[in-house]
């Protein structure tokens, strides 16, 4: 008889907080944005920090990165308290990519990446053989080899962001912290950026912590999720665990938005026009389903024909819909949507 192992070995904790409180301290007042935070980011894992706007994600990230002091509590990098490190020592353990827009003219991509060697290189910033090797490795790691000699200021936003990641990698950190690296990117670049970060955690022992608003993308890609809830507590775990516990729904659902864990995505509530039934198979059936959902019809899986307000059949050359024994037909989904809208107005 074999005994099932219930707990697999978790990778090493690269970054850990103990009862951390983050916020702002002025001469008279102390304003804690988030308190009693206990988090762990593991080597070789992509951790996504999520939560509603203005909840304190950036403050938390800046504190983790040592860019602003913790109010209370401890941040540890590989077991060493952040406060015990020098600025250069910190830079050798932790790399940062910020939302700051970098404006620097007449400066090649390779030069930008070389700046990442600041904490390693000599007094005048001269590059030793090993420094050059690391720079070239970082350039390859983010896939910007073809841009290496181009002027940084002429790159697209997505390319720039990659270069900034390469620069952080050149610091040879154990932890990489990124504050909304996808914020100004178009959709393919967003997917590529998150994909790149995931790939980095796989090819190196890097722990990556990234805050993002791309919830659905993060839920599909992250190894771990830190979800800041409206009350200020932080839910952690694998994305699936957090979804199952209802955390996402609690944090983001609104009057017109529902989170569907099974689809790992949000749905807009568009009204209640009744139930609809779909006949047909394949992608066309899926698309018809999407049209019905958008126009406010529920589509129960096992619906009897007579219990439904509309019945839609899809076939190779279009659709047929029957409602109250009248049959309508069309060739594309635009006409289906128009038909459904017309019914709604009539009702």
């Amino acid at each position: 008889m074999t005994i099932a192992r219930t707990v697999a070995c978790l990778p090493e904790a690269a970054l850990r907080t103990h009862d951390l409180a983050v916020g702002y301290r002025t001469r008279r007042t102390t304003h804690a944005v988030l308190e009693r935070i206990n988090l762990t980011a593991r080597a070789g894992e992509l951790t996504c920090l999520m939560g509603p706007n203005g909840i304190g994600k950036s403050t938390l990230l800046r504190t983790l990165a040592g860019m602003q002091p913790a109010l209370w509590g401890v941040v540890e990098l590989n077991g060493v308290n952040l406060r015990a490190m020098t600025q250069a020592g910190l830079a050798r353990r932790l790399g940062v990519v910020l939302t700051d827009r970098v404006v620097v003219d007449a400066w090649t991509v390779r030069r930008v990446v070389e700046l990442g060697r600041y904490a390693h290189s000599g007094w005048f910033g001269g590059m030793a053989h090993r420094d050059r090797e690391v720079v070239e490795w970082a350039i390859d790691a983010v896939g910007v080899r073809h841009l290496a000699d181009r002027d940084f200021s002429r790159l697209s936003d997505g390319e720039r962001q990659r270069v900034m990641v390469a620069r952080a990698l050149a610091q040879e950190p154990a932890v990489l912290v990124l504050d909304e690296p996808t914020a100004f990117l178009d959709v393919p670049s967003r997917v590529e950026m998150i994909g790149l970060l995931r790939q980095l955690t796989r090819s190196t022992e890097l722990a990556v912590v990234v805050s993002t608003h791309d919830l659905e993308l993060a839920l599909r890609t992250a190894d771990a999720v830190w979800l800041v809830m409206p009350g200020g507590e932080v839910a952690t775990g694998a994305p699936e665990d957090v979804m199952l516990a209802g955390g996402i729904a609690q944090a983001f659902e609104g009057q017109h938005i529902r989170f569907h864990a099974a689809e790992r995505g949000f749905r807009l509530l568009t009204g209640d026009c009744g139930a609809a039934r779909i006949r047909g198979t394949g992608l066309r059936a899926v698309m018809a389903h999407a049209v019905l959902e958008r126009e406010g019809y529920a589509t129960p899986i096992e619906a009897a024909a007579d219990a439904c307000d509309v019945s839609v059949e899809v076939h190779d050359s279009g659709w047929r819909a029957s409602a109250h024994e009248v049959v309508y037909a069309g060739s594309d989904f635009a006409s289906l949507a128009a038909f459904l809208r017309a019914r709604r107005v009539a009702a």
Partner: protein
Amino acid sequence: MTKADLGRLTALVLTLVAAILLSLALGSTRIPLRGVFSALMGTSRGSSGAFVVTTIRLPRSLTAMLAGASLGIAGLQMQTLFENPLADPFALGISSGANLGVALVVLDAGYGPASAFGTAMGMRGDALVTAAAIVGAGAVLTVVLIVSNRVASPTTVLVLGLMFGYAVSAVVTVLVGASRPERLQQWAQWGFGSFSGVTWQRLRLFAPLSIVGVLIALATTKQLNALLLGERYARSMGLKVRQARLLTMVGASLLGAVVTAFCGPISFLGIAVPHLCRGLFGTSDHRVLVPAVVLMGSVLALLAQMLSLLPGSAGMLPLNAVTSLLGAPVVVAVLLRSRRGALA
């Protein structure tokens, strides 16, 4: 530093040498190059030409070179530190401070104590003006540094310096308004700027101070490069930002203050030279820019000095008018030629 950079630097060095020789040869009496050489070698001691070269023109040319290099370096530091292409050596209000100091002793409109104190110290004329400028610049700089040390954002520091400048200028305006015409003349003379007033004796103070300032910049090229990405990124890469900022502000202000004290408020070179070098060298790398700015600043200052003497014995053009009239079109041309502008 690439081969092309080295080539351009060499060309600048050659231009500088030519400019130095020209500046020694040209003037109210023209001295042939052979005469200049023999004067420099000390083989024609006693001739009037050699006297003019060694006691008048050589210190004047050295002063121009030091002033041009100093202002260029200070401008470069300020522009990088404040991430602002319009920053110049006087961004922290030090030229207004020097102005105030000089106004107090020159205008003397019922503010006798300042000049009386100077006279008691055995200083008169130019030396007194220089001392007053140094004290004024130092006072304003100290206040700005103390205040700015509590401020996080570089932009705020810049605005602080600007506000200080305005406040101090207002005081100067009051002094000007209350002063006598013949004093105003002397005051205006100081405002024109000049490289001619610095003798060998005064160079002994001017040169070391200005060289120290340039060495500070040379020693901090790595820090300045890191600052190109902004203070927050620089910090995340291991730069001690507060320390680097203080060192750079002190260094740049020292350069600006020293030049102002010895040569008057020389406008324009400080802002223009860094832009010209960025345009010419096509890089923002301070390891290249610092030597380039030193050379370019020296050349331009020498050129301006020679042009201000052009009318010959009829009198001199104000140096400030020459630097701006000569430099503004050049900078505009350089900016327009580089597609996005060498600044941004």
